[in-house]
């Protein structure tokens, strides 16, 4: 069989198993990891009216993985009557952040400017992170809709990080690292992140050194958070398919290794 045909069979198999896992109703139980539990407990413990800053620092291509995290975290914040200051330090995250906030705000009957605001995008992210430590009004003189920031009800008195309880960076790259390195030590700002699974090991050193408060990682992290929140969302819906895909890949790796070692043995005999 040609290599191309083997490749097609493997892809077709993956597509078939993932689709089947989606169409068949499979209930999966997953206990929350320490980090997800810590994130949930912290947000749960905040008093009403506390201001969180959520930064949408990701591209559109990583939406399937990071959006379930941002959706459940924003829902959690709005359910507990916390206020959200949204922004983006990644150009592609701008419209995504605005739409996501508006969508969840409508579910909880939250009012723009009073319960949440979206400040928009700012280029030169390091300068923006440092600048907000001095004055958010200087970095974002106007919000995404063009309103003067210091006159928006939610922003009155919110001058810098002293008035922000926590920064949550939803990211698919190293943008949260800049939040940790620049907003953390200099302004003593607490940073949490929701990120793609591929980036988890990159953030482990910051987590174990206490510079990063907690991490909600990947679709699994979103599913765990949804379980704690008490609502099935995209994270939980994807878990059976994720498990089936992983099992399929493990089987493929084992088969591939068996074939490899068998071929090597044959070559050894013939030589």
């Amino acid at each position, binding site marked *: 069989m040609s290599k*191309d045909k083997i*490749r*097609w069979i493997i*892809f077709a198999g*993956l*597509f078939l198993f*993932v*689709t089947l896992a*989606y*169409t068949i109703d499979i209930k999966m139980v997953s206990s929350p990891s320490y980090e997800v539990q810590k994130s949930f407990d912290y947000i749960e413990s905040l008093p009403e009216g506390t201001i969180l800053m959520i930064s949408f620092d990701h*591209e*559109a*291509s*990583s*939406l*399937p*993985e990071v*959006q379930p995290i941002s959706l459940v975290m924003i829902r959690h914040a709005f359910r507990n009557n916390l206020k959200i200051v949204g922004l983006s330090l990644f*150009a*592609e995250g*701008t*419209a995504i952040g605005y739409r996501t906030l508006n969508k969840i705000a409508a579910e909880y009957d939250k009012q723009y400017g009073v319960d949440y605001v979206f400040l*928009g*995008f*700012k*280029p030169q992210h*390091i300068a923006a992170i*440092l600048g907000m430590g001095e004055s958010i009004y200087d970095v974002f*003189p*106007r919000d995404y809709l063009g309103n003067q920031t210091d006159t928006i009800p939610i922003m009155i008195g919110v001058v810098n990080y002293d008035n922000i309880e926590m920064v949550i960076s939803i990211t698919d790259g190293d943008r949260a690292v800049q939040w*940790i*390195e*620049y907003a*953390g*030590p*200099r302004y003593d700002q607490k940073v949490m992140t929701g990120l*793609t*699974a*591929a*980036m*988890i*090991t990159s953030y482990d*050193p*910051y987590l*174990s*050194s*206490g*510079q990063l408060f907690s991490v909600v*990682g*990947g*679709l*699994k992290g979103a599913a765990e958070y949804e379980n704690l929140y008490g609502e099935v969302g*995209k994270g939980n*819906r*994807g878990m059976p*398919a*994720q498990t089936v*895909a*992983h099992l399929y*890949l493990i089987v493929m790796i084992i088969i591939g290794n068996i074939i490899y070692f068998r071929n090597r043995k044959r070559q050894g005999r013939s030589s």
Partner: protein
Amino acid sequence: MDIGVIIAGILTLAIYTFLYKDNPIYRAAESLLIGLAMGYVLVIYWQTAFMDRIFSPLLNENDWWVLIPLILGLLMFSRFSRKYSWLSRIPIALMIGAGAGVAIPAMLYARTLKQISASVMPLITESGGFNFEALVVIVGLLSTLTYFYFSREHKGIIGKVAKLGTYFLMIFFGATFGYTVMSRMSTFIGRIDFLLSDFLHIIK
């Protein structure tokens, strides 16, 4: 059905045709994606950098100070001229100087000092128990560092410790690879979810 969903569904399928082999449908969808992303980013940058930070303060508030960064930015384009390319060194020097000044202390603190302090953990806990995690960290750190110590040949005890370091590295690479696979699968699952629910309405 929403026209956006139809377009997104068709483009998703067009991108997946690459799994069969490279073809014009895939390339058209790929070009469209790159073009759209670049166009969107360009518009956002134009609005937030030029309009909000330069033209609006200059024209509406008569803030002449913004001319300084504007001129410095324009000097970057002098690189296109052989005669005046030296002028571009001024903004570059400023950027490197300011960038290094901001980044070096922050990185030194976050990536070196804090990491060193987090790596040095007591082997005996406050309750008098043995801290196995600390032992793993110390052994892993020292053996991995030994692997990257090239001033002496990796023979004898150094060779054995370096070999142990490679095992720790393998575990790290394995974990990273596993997470990356999980990440890519999540993206794929997200698209399948979109195709089956929003696009084809097979599942709710």
